[in-house]
């Protein structure tokens, strides 16, 4: 996966954060990247078409709750885990569709799997992200890691 692709993914993610979740994401440099959360939520989905791979997000439960609260028009404390996970999945789904469109246009057909969310500790996240094209955003004080995989 080229550097151009991860740059495109970064631009798409920031735009979808703003348009879909009404959240502002600040790209971080390697030196200033946030630490991997000790207890994270990891969302992944596969895309199969002219390109084949996995798009993933890793973040905190607090981020997912804030996103769901924005989308549902509630306070973060009024959102349950199921709703927060659903918001993260839909955000990933929309981001994946927009990313593939930016790369390939309207011609190719892609099969997209249903997104899944699982809990992950820091060691599991490190293993999943090691050597993968990735970037980190600071989203209103919460870390959001975005990565590509096989």
């Amino acid at each position, binding site marked *: 996966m080229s550097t151009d692709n991860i740059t495109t993914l970064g631009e798409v993610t920031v735009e*979808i954060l703003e*348009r*879909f979740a009404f959240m502002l994401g600040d790209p971080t440099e390697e030196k200033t990247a946030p630490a991997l959360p000790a207890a994270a939520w990891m969302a992944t989905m596969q895309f199969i078409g002219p390109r084949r791979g996995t798009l993933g997000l890793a973040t905190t439960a607090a981020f997912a709750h804030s996103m*769901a609260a924005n*989308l*549902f*028009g509630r306070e973060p404390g009024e959102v349950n885990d199921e*709703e927060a996970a*659903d*918001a993260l*999945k*839909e*955000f990933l*789904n*929309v981001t*994946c*569709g*927009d990313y593939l*469109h930016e790369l390939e246009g*309207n*011609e*190719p*057909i*892609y099969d*997209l799997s*249903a997104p899944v969310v699982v809990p992950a500790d820091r060691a599991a996240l490190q293993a999943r992200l090691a050597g993968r094209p990735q970037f980190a955003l600071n989203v209103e004080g919460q870390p959001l890691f975005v990565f590509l995989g096989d």
Partner: protein
Amino acid sequence: MGYNILIVDDSLTARTFIARTLEISGVELQQVYQARNGQEALDLLQREWVDIVFADINMPVMNGLELVRRMRETELLKAVPVIVISTDRSAQRMNELKAAGVQAYLTKPITPEELKATVERFLQPAA
């Protein structure tokens, strides 16, 4: 008075986003119904009159394409406009949906302006 609108998507987030975007758009709404898949939508359409349907494609139980096919086979639902809202933008998929009877295709995330323009394109002003 306003429109009765049905939103069909397996994601609560997507349904809520579309419903809130409709409210913001200024479209006159009487009732906004929600269904989690095509089968739930068909069940609801047997009980309630709906002016327009916004549906996703990829859903469990019954997907959006099958929902449209079933609606087009049903006398009372034949003329109800169905607008697909999805992340899938391939031209081939859009052609397949149009052939099945989908009136228009919007990509997520939709904007209030897109939704309002779509409702106005397919419906007469609400009584």
